[in-house]
């Protein structure tokens, strides 16, 4: 007489749930790794701001900060536009 394969639906469900938990744990671990790396990268970029205690939020809350930033962006757009034109003209 040969043994019948287990067909208890609860065991199958438990196995599926365990696999799902393992998958979620793996996702969480990956998320933790990514978070740590992103924060570390941000700290690398923010070093000089933090070194000099420059608070961008406070800086931008000052009167005139937003117009100044917008003006800077416009100047940058003009510079880019000029560069593109120059490249096209010179064929670079």
């Amino acid at each position: 007489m040969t043994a019948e394969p287990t067909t208890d639906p609860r065991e199958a469900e438990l196995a599926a749930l365990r696999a799902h938990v393992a998958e979620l744990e793996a996702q969480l671990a990956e998320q933790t790794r990514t978070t740590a790396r992103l924060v570390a990268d941000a700290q690398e970029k923010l070093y000089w701001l933090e070194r000099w205690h420059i608070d961008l939020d406070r800086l931008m809350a000052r009167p005139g900060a937003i117009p100044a930033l917008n003006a800077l962006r416009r100047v940058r757009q003009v510079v880019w536009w000029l560069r593109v034109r120059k490249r096209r003209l010179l064929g670079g």
Partner: protein
Amino acid sequence: MSAPRSVSVVVPVKDGERYLRELLDAVLAQAADAPGGLDVLVIDSGSSDRSVAIAREAGAEVVEIEPASFGHGRTRNLGAERTSGDIIAFLTQDATPLPGWIAALLEGFGLADDVGAVYGPHRPRPDTSPMIARELEAFFAGHAAGGRDGVSPSLQREGDDAYLSNVNAAYRRDCWEQLRFPDVPYSEDQAFAQAMLAAGWAKAFHPDAAVLHAHDYPPVQFARRYFDEYRGLRQTIGHVEGFGVRSAVRDVRSLVAHDRAWMREHGYEGAQLARWTARSAVHQGSRKVFSALGSRADRLPAAVQRRISLEGTAITAPGDAGNPAAPASETAAMAVSGKPIRAASRPLAYDAVRRYAHDGPAPLLDPLPGQDADRPLHVACVIPPFSRGSGGHNSIFQIMSRLERAGHTVTYWVDDTFGLMAADRPARIRRDIQEWFAPIAGPVFKGFADWYGADVAVATGWQTAHPVALLPGVRGRAYLVHDHEPEFYATSVEAHWAADTYLLGMHHICASPWLADIVAERYGGSVSTFDFGVDHAVYHRTGAPRREDTVVLYGRDVTPRRAVPLALMALKELADRRPNLRVLSFGDAREIDLPVDYEHLGILSQRELAQVYNEGTVGLVLSLTNYSLIPQEMLACGMPCVDLAGISAESVFGADGPVALSPFDPVAMAEVIDRLMGDRDEWRRRSEAGVAFVAGRTWDVAAEQVEAGLRETLARRMAAGDAPAAAAPRSGA
């Protein structure tokens, strides 16, 4: 601070027309010295003279407040709030800045990154009486670097003099924002200075940031002013000026003699000298009497106080307030009351101990399959504050950086209870770690506001153990034990709490078998061990010619467990035997009192240390607790060393290994060093044994050992299947 900084000058005023025009002109003339811009705010609290008009004419912004709402701290906070300069400079209405004042203030902030305040001297005006002029000169002369003869700016940090005066002081805005002036009747500047130094900020004195300022009055008004001043000191800090007839006469004579000497130096002679000598005697005598009287002003009737006080005010004795008609018996019953103090805004020191006692440890999550074997872990490393050269932190970061390279994720959490690194932000701390210790890759967090759990939370010093026990979302807790820290303290709560940390149910990863034995036997904790590594790229034999008369001393006298006084005695004995002895001391910026000539090396870089270890004959590195990294690094450079017998060194180096062990006796220690210096065979044997001993000691190996300890932490959790045994909370919460 090289970036342009804007400066806001704030001047609280009441009936200050006498010097206000001169003051504002002097400030505005220096606008070019503030590259980020200069603005001036005058806060008038009810002047009846032309102060407000003068301020407006000069172009200053004027804010008028009710006289009753004035407070030294409160009003200056208002001034800081109403301005936007990166630097907020405060002047009193009778302090006229001298040329170069703003430039010197900004230079003061550039002395170090953590300078939160800069102050300068008060110089006498031309008509200031000689007694006051001398006092001012003498007082501020001691503030410059180099002492009384110094002319350079100086820096003060925690433990240094907390003097700061808002007559002439400037603050970095973020420092003021962090602390703000307390709302106290007097001495808000002194209170701020104490708080900022305690929070890890530095302050600077710049001798060129000078103002003309002297409180000069006729003799009677001087006496009345001293009455007010000492009455205020009694109210704010409880100071009571002593008084005795003999001592008062002696003091007054001495002060008058000093005044006369100063006058002679400054060309006073003949009748002028006699007249000012008489004034000096009256001044110093009345000061003595009225300062003592001011300290006891609460014993005087209010009417008498008002007559004496220059401010025309009176204070009431404790218990009298609001009930002047109370019968004598009731007054006596009410007499015992204290000065009301507001609750401190800072958290309680070591508050995690209290929270642990109340709540107990946070529940642990179940470890995941494979975390006790080879699955990558998220390790949260909780560290106490540090400074450059910290040996314990070097070990932590060397190991953690290698765990990162092995595939683990490590996050670093600075638990800074006392605000020792308050001025440093996470990115700065991270870079400091990378530059001073090891190239870590993980992020750094200050405090636990952003805590997001970890597979293993690691305590790395006793102060971090209770906070780690409280962290939620953790599968295991480990304790990287570098030393038996209760021994760092005299009988104290710190000693008790440090001992308690070995009872929190963590797994202990100990930095020597000696330490592991203590934790296991004395506290019943689970233990594994790791060995300190050596950076062989730095510490190795260079083949440079080695001197035969040189003892290299770890002279860190500020750390009592390094037994420096004993080492000094041994060196004195040794110098008597070896007249040509050369002693090099390192490990402390401060010089030590050694009764033989020596060379003070201060704090050296690792490369410099390796050079010294390759040049010296014998190292003298004592430890009354666990051994340190230094003996191993000396051995790696081929220099044998001497440590104390009967403590931890045997457990690491063996009884007759590369380290020569000495009894706790200066004469015997001198003999051990003398023998090692004189016996070439023994020296060579220990030198070779040392190089061989440390050959296998690397930070890679240490990291593997610590990783095994972390795995064991999780394995024990898996085996236990529930939270570790730990001290139960004391409340039902």
